């Protein structure tokens, strides 16, 4: 009997979900339509900081089709004017008397039609008394600064202090250092700006007493629990459904006030309520990413050996600490900042600060604060190379954690699972033709032309997490899978994580196919419905494969163990006489005596051994023993226009190592997207505020998402270093490229200008920043 064709691990299986997306048959949030549905639109504050003296809704309520105008006072009466954030802070749902950032929700209008709701928003009259806004986080800490949050007991804009590593040991290393590199870096505020904005349809069934919320969320189960705790509605009476999600990248992890207000409106009216953000609302009010002001120092020997790292950071969190980090990690996993290098000591401090800006501190397609960390260390290593007149590749080779050092304990306390950093960099250098490029650069430089080569050899930290350390609001960061094999040999898998384009319906089916020997096309994957899927923490921080992927494999192995007993029964041998070969059970030494999983599945319902439970299913809640540490080596080549300062990425080679790969096609796609979202904040995207707290990039005309014309043709390759603790050796990949790309680009630009005395440029690197250097150095085209 020939083995079944299953197309499991390592196959570039075409995506199952594409069937509906290609035909325009996806169901995104705005596609959900329910009978009797009403529309919600939101009145927002033009001011960053103001007292609300009056809200007059009479004109809005007089408009035909308007059913209600909800204000903070209405919510306050129900005890819902504030909600808890994931970081132990609280956040206004609707303000009672004060707004604390521009575009903050002030009131909500409920109307029969979308267009009428928009008209009514314009008719709600709000009187404000503007207050001095707190914009600069450094000034926010001065004694005379206005308070962003007078509601708090502590009368300061300082939120928290966090640190990792050994201060004394680090200071000692610095005292003896032969070379100290100091660099300030600002990693600007940016926005994920998924092409689909956020929204929900909240529907309360009064008869059943059940609340169903369709919501653009990356974490439906946690949302259900939080909604239950806040509203008092029993958790079994709440169903959260994540429909198809038009991109998440971290921006769809938080609970936005709109979700809560729509839910309250549905509870009050008994009608389904639809709320869909427009793009300006999304850009101006939804959670931001980054906004880290970093001051870093590196201690090294003259020969280029790096010894210690010391970092102080001010984190601008906006008006509420509504970041989406694990509870014990207010600065996320920023302490991965020692990167791929073997340091003796490190000490990292972060202070969180309130300002009159939207809350957040979510990811931008990166694991918690890893991008900020990687940018810092990769820039410092380049600065060290420049200082010592060494090639940046050589400095890296000299300082890499060596393959035999894994598992490696970092000075800030992480245990890296596996890695081979020199191999990845060597591969990238070969692929890009590093030596030739350096020769070309020297020739060009002699002619006055500018080109640069930038390296980034990053280490990611993903897959939170071991539950002893990682939780969100007390809920441990495990993840789950449930598999049921049907009698005819097909199966359904339900998982606790939520796809936003990663292709879970395909890759999780491949995991099961591999583990159970069932053809991939016979396996259905479901997620996103809290009534049916097992409890999980959701998809962000590249955790799906490390956690739910592992759970899926472990659940499948539980099934396989039972299947073995059924196979033994069918073959009339002892289970110990069987081996799992070519995705089927075979009697040891008798290759012709086999049973397939399809045969076993049928027997599980029709002919199972007496004394055994019928059926073939299993569930697993997987608590990873450690995080996983994907890594990569990126090399970027840029050309600079001396007349405009424009930076063009000529080539970009990305060698990634994410352990064993389920679907190479999907992994490559993830890397392409991640690289693009790494390039964007390096050269284009940034959010800035004027002195009044006006966000200056409130539309996609000013917030610059790259098009196909700015995006280079990415070149990808891989090395494979399996994770030793993951059931099938995978590590997670969705965000590696976003984390790894920015320093490669920044390093390339600095490299192009290094002979002019340039040692650092903050991102985004604008053409005028480059031009100003050229002009001062007399290198501009005239």
């Amino acid at each position, binding site marked *: 009997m020939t083995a079944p064709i299953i197309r499991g691990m390592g196959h570039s299986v075409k995506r199952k979900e594409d069937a509906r997306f290609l035909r325009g048959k996806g169901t995104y949030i705005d596609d959900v339509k329910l009978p009797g549905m009403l529309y919600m639109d939101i009145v927002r504050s*033009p001011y960053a900081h103001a007292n609300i003296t009056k809200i007059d809704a009479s004109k809005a309520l007089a408009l035909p089709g308007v059913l209600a105008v909800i204000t903070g006072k209405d919510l306050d009466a129900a005890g819902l004017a504030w909600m808890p954030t994931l970081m132990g802070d609280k956040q206004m749902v609707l303000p009672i008397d004060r707004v604390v950032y521009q575009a903050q929700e002030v009131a909500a209008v409920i109307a029969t039609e979308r267009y009428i709701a928009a008209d009514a928003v314009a008719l709600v009259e709000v009187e404000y008394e503007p207050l001095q806004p707190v914009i600069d986080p450094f000034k926010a800490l001065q004694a005379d600064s206005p308070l962003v949050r007078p509601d708090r007991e502590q009368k300061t804009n300082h939120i928290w202090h966090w640190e990792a590593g050994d201060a004394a040991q680090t200071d000692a290393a610095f005292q003896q250092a032969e070379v100290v590199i100091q660099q300030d870096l600002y990693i600007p505020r940016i926005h994920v700006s998924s092409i689909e904005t956020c929204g929900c349809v909240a529907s309360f069934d009064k008869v059943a007493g059940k609340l169903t919320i369709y919501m653009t969320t990356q974490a439906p189960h946690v949302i259900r629990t939080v909604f239950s705790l806040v509203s008092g509605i029993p958790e079994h009476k709440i169903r959260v459904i994540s429909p198809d999600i038009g991109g998440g990248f971290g921006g769809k992890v938080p609970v936005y006030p709109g979700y809560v207000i729509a839910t309250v409106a549905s509870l009050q009216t008994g009608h389904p309520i639809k709320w869909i953000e427009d793009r300006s609302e999304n850009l101006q009010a939804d959670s931001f990413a980054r906004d880290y002001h970093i001051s870093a120092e590196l201690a090294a020997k003259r020969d280029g050996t790096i010894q210690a790292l010391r970092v102080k950071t001010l984190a601008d969190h906006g008006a509420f600490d509504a970041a989406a980090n694990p509870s014990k990690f207010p600065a996320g996993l920023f302490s991965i900042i020692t990167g791929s290098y073997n340091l003796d000591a490190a000490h990292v401090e972060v202070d969180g600060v309130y300002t009159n800006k939207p809350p957040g501190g979510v990811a931008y397609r990166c694991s918690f604060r890893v991008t900020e960390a990687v940018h810092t260390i990769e820039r410092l290593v380049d600065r060290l190379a420049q200082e010592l007149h060494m090639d940046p590749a050589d400095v890296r080779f000299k300082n890499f954690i060596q393959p035999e050092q894994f598992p490696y304990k970092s000075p800030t306390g992480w245990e890296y699972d596996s890695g081979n950093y020199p191999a990845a960099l060597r591969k990238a250098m070969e692929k890009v033709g590093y030596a030739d490029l350096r020769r070309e650069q020297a020739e060009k430089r002699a002619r006055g032309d500018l080109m640069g080569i930038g390296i980034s050899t990053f280490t990611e930290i993903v897959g939170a997490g071991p539950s002893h350390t990682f939780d969100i609001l007390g809920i441990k960061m495990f993840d789950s899978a449930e598999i049921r094999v049907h009698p005819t040999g097909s199966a359904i898998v339900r998982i606790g994580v939520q796809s936003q384009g990663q292709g879970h319906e395909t890759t999780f089916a491949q995991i099961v196919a591999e583990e159970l020997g069932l053809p991939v096309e016979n396996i259905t994957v479901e997620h996103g419905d809290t009534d049916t899927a097992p409890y999980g923490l959701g998809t962000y921080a590249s955790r799906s494969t490390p956690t739910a992927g592992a759970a899926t494999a472990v659940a499948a192995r539980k099934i396989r163990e039972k299947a073995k007993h059924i196979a033994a029964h069918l073959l009339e041998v002892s289970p110990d006489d069987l081996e799992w070969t070519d995705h089927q059970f075979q009697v040891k030494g008798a290759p012709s005596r086999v049973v397939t999983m399809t045969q076993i599945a049928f027997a599980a319902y029709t002919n199972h051994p007496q004394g055994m439970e019928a059926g073939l299913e299993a569930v697993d809640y997987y608590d990873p023993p450690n995080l996983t540490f994907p890594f990569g080596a990126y090399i970027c080549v840029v050309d600079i226009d001396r007349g405009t300062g424009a930076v063009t990425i000529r080539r970009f080679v990305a060698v990634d190592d994410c352990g064993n790969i389920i679907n190479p096609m999907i992994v490559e796609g993830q890397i392409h997207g991640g690289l693009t979202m790494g390039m964007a904040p390096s050269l284009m995207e940034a959010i800035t505020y004027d002195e009044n707290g*006006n966000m200056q990039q409130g539309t996609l005309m000013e917030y610059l998402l790259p098009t196909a014309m700015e995006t280079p043709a990415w070149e990808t390759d891989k090395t494979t270093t399996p994770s030793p603790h993951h059931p099938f050796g995978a590590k997670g990949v969705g965000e590696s490229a976003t984390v790894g790309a920015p320093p490669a680009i920044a390093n390339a630009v600095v490299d192009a200008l290094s002979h002019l005395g340039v040692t650092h440029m903050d991102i985004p690197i604008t053409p005028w920043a480059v031009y100003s250097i050229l002009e001062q150095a007399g290198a501009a085209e005239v």
Partner: protein
Amino acid sequence: MHFQGEQTINTSVEKVWAFFMDPNAVAQCAPGFQSMEILGPDHFKPKLAIGVGAVKVTFTLDVTLEDMREPSHAAMAAHGMAAGSGVDMRAAMDLTPESATTTHMNWTADVNVSGTLASMGARLLEGVAHKQTDNFFSCLREKLEAAPA
């Protein structure tokens, strides 16, 4: 945004002051003036269609006069909301008689625009606001000089 300017008006300082005490007269110089509600001697609500070309937003401004020192100094604060935007302005002028029939005026205006107009119109806002503020003050001069002696 901070704007300032000065001009010499061929009218006595008393006439200039008297003109400013007449909100209906001053309002004629306000950009896109449509109508006005007078709530008191120092409190008015003019309705203005502010904008240029295709861009036009109708604001009802709440204007109060403050720090009035006849005949040398006057100031006003104005605040209005429309189309998801807020406009806040403080303007002041100092009058110095140069002769019996000429008056020197120094003026300053601080204009803050928030919300949609600020984020949508940022690239053009300063230029347009500057021009409209300039126009307002030069219109005052023209009206004063055109008034019958």
